[in-house]
């Protein structure tokens, strides 16, 4: 068995100190060590985007990172965006526009879109489609997702 490494990482504002094997993926660490199961795993090889989290504010695929790499950094998962009765405007817009069906891909879309909308408060449809082109959704056909992003942008500008 390999040696354990210390990881001190702030996830959704809480500092966690854990010892992990160096090969543990960030996705597994978040889901199984920290119990933050909102981050989903759809492909384990960086294609589907379901496992996207924010690493120091930037979207990364947590299935392509090791937990030890987050030592000293900040991670935000879907659980850190909003609460059931206090949704983030993007979550609210997804709800209103019916941008989710099974909801499995949704956390990855939300975490991809938060920084995108911060940088592009008034995106064109083309820009939106580009922004989500690395996230796969098998249920929605993307149209309602695009509409939700437009709606969220409106909400956030207001």
């Amino acid at each position: 068995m390999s040696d354990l490494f210390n990881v001190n990482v702030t996830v959704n504002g809480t500092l966690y100190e854990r010892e992990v094997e160096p090969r543990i993926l960030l996705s597994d660490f978040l889901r199984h060590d920290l119990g933050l199961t909102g981050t989903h795993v759809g492909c384990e090889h960086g294609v589907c985007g379901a496992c996207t989290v924010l690493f120091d504010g930037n979207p990364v695929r947590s299935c392509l990172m090791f937990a030890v790499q987050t030592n000293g950094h900040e991670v935000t998962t879907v659980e850190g965006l909003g609460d059931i009765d206090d949704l983030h405007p993007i979550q609210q817009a997804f709800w209103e526009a019916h941008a989710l069906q099974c909801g499995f891909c949704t956390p990855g879309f939300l975490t991809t879109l938060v920084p995108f909308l911060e940088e592009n408060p008034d995106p064109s449809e083309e820009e939106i489609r580009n922004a989500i082109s690395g996230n796969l959704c098998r249920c929605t056909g993307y149209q309602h997702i695009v509409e939700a992003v437009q709606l969220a942008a409106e909400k956030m500008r207001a």
Partner: protein
Amino acid sequence: MTYKFIGKRIKRNEDPRLLTGQALFVDDVDIPGMLHVAFVRSDYAHARILNIETEAARQHPGVVAVYTAEDMGDEWAPGPPLVSPPPTLAGVIFNSRRQSPLAKGKVYHAGEAIVAIVAESRYIAEDAADEVRVDYEPLPVVVDLEKAMGPDSPRVHDDLDTNLAAHMFQKKGDYEVARAQADLIIKKKFFLDRGAAVAMENRGVVAHWDEKSQQMTIWDTTQAPIPIRNGTAARLGLSQKQVRVIAPFLGGGFGPKAMMFYPEEMLIPWLSMKLCRPIKWIEDRRENFYATTSERQQVHEVEIALTNDGRVLGLKDDFLHDTGAFDPYGLTIPLNTQCHVTGPYDIQNIASNCTAVFTNKPIVTPVRGAGRPQGVFIIERMMDFAARELGMEPLELRVKNLIPPEAFPYDKEIIDQAFAKLILDSGNYLPVVEKAREMIGYDQFIKEEQPRLRAEGKFVGIGITPFIETTGVGPYEGVRIQIEPSGKVNVATGIGTQGQGHFTSFAQIVSEQLGVAVSDVSLVSGDTAEFHWGTGTFASRGAVVAGSATLAAATSVRTKVLKLASKVLETPEEELELEDGVVRVADLPHRSISLGELAALANPLRGAVEPGTEPGLEATDYFGPAYGATSFGVHAMIIEVDPETMMIEFKRYITVEDCGTVLNPLILEGQIHGGVSMGIGNSYYEKMHWDENGQLLNASLADYLIVTAHEMPNRIEVGHLETRSPFNKLGTKGVGEAGAIPVTACFTQALENALEEYHLEILESPLSPNRLYELLRNLTMSTYGREARK
């Protein structure tokens, strides 16, 4: 009929949990002491297992147990067959061959599980799996359908003389007579290939045998929790009461999660009992391509007989259907193909001959569409070729042959997946076609726009495709509804839900009856401890069958509410109304009592409940349709082909649906968009590539391409017309698969139309940019050849 809740665009009850990462999926289940399983799977598609060396894996630190088929001893048994072949068909042959929990003696397809490793973590289990050595004697592999039925083909199952899995012949009228009367006979051969369902969530099973309470709890990514419970109880020698199966939130289903008794579903609960520990197995994406079922491979030889003025007199279809290495799902898919190969057309003479074939490929079970897209593809291709031969407008030929409204209920005389003759319950097809034609601007496009764009050198084409979808088949579903003293309403049903919005659409039905807010109705689905009668979510039947049961139960509760309120408010029932969570006297709204108070009164702590009444405001009801409800729809698209890259751009995409009463248009649109996206994938991007050794060459999402936001049309415009189904009180028909069914047919039509000058004849699906390039190149080469010879 005007509704207050039904038919409204209501936000979904289930979304806040999903949006905040609080919804429970199977892989989120975490139980102290839980062990993890990894499988050693076959690298060969067909081989004898000579020896399995597991010692090193057993010694691996952290490994708790290692099982092969041998290690299971007497408890190794193949899975139960799911459905039997249609008993009412004369002369049907069905050879049942079943999958087993772990391969014994021989592997039948690549990816078949051979060894299960149980360890303290998944990481350790996978490390140990690498240390297992399996010695194989490779056997000749059966991949190609036509070769599989040849006299010299190797055989998948040693105990059968051929690779014939099933044979069935169905007919209506007499095709040979029609043929003799016809002015025009067209004959074609088509090749359709396999695609994968690719739910974003892979499969998974967590089983927890609690020795002390003698209870088995299973979390399973299944579309059919109740049959899984019943089968598991039987396999493990437990009573049904001892087994609870929970299908929590599922990350998409699309059919394969309704397959019953995947090897892992048989094995994981058994292991939990053996080891008295909770056990989890979660499929990875590569396993998903091999170990989860897939569909659509068929080879059709088709003949259509017409008159010169475009009446279709008859259709003959001889087809091979790939069933994979085993056939636990029976003949559902080819039966659907047989039912849809005549489409929405009034064709009086049909001869359909189906041969299901064993191959060394993973098991075939329904994927969204379930054999229907193949049938629709065939008839629509034949219609296109016929229109060309007859010099008719493709749409005109179709309209001419539609089943007329007065012909309903219309008997297709073909046995469907419910093993009864397919009766189309109701329909009025022409207005739907007209609406689609108008929405897409068919005439204007053909007459003005297309010639103009063509003159600019653009390759633009139009496709318009009517189709039927049989939905809402039996046997039955049930629902229990109870009003709580808080005034909230609990609903429990046995079907599982995979994103179709049942939490909301069923709540709307309840709200309509009880006058409560949709958000006050909470639904539990897919938990056998909550409701334990039913079959599952498949065949676009959830909204129709469970929805109708919901209506029945809600109506019963309403009756109880009125009866009690009438007594309490001293007012005749007819003068009462249910509104905003209270029962009130219609003209005297201040005289009211809340549903919660009534519920408390209905369950008194003292005194006596009157004889003949039941405590509480609760009712359970069932719905079992004699026939399914058949939806009708039209898809139409305008596409542009880039002649350099062969990439496609969707200029317009229209669907018009008639699925009877719409419960929630928002959800309906979502279902259609999603179906279309899968259909587009099936048309032009998604194909499972098997090599001649039965190896799947694109078993990852990097190689198997499902559509992204870029490949989709920007806007799918959804139109709607309503012909209520007379077979259920809601008047609704299913729509879950409709989005996917006609897309390949319509796309192919549009593609040929865009490339009209090449006289391309497309006889296969799926295509791809590469394949289209090849087809065009072959065509121009053969034209060159002809020119040169002249």
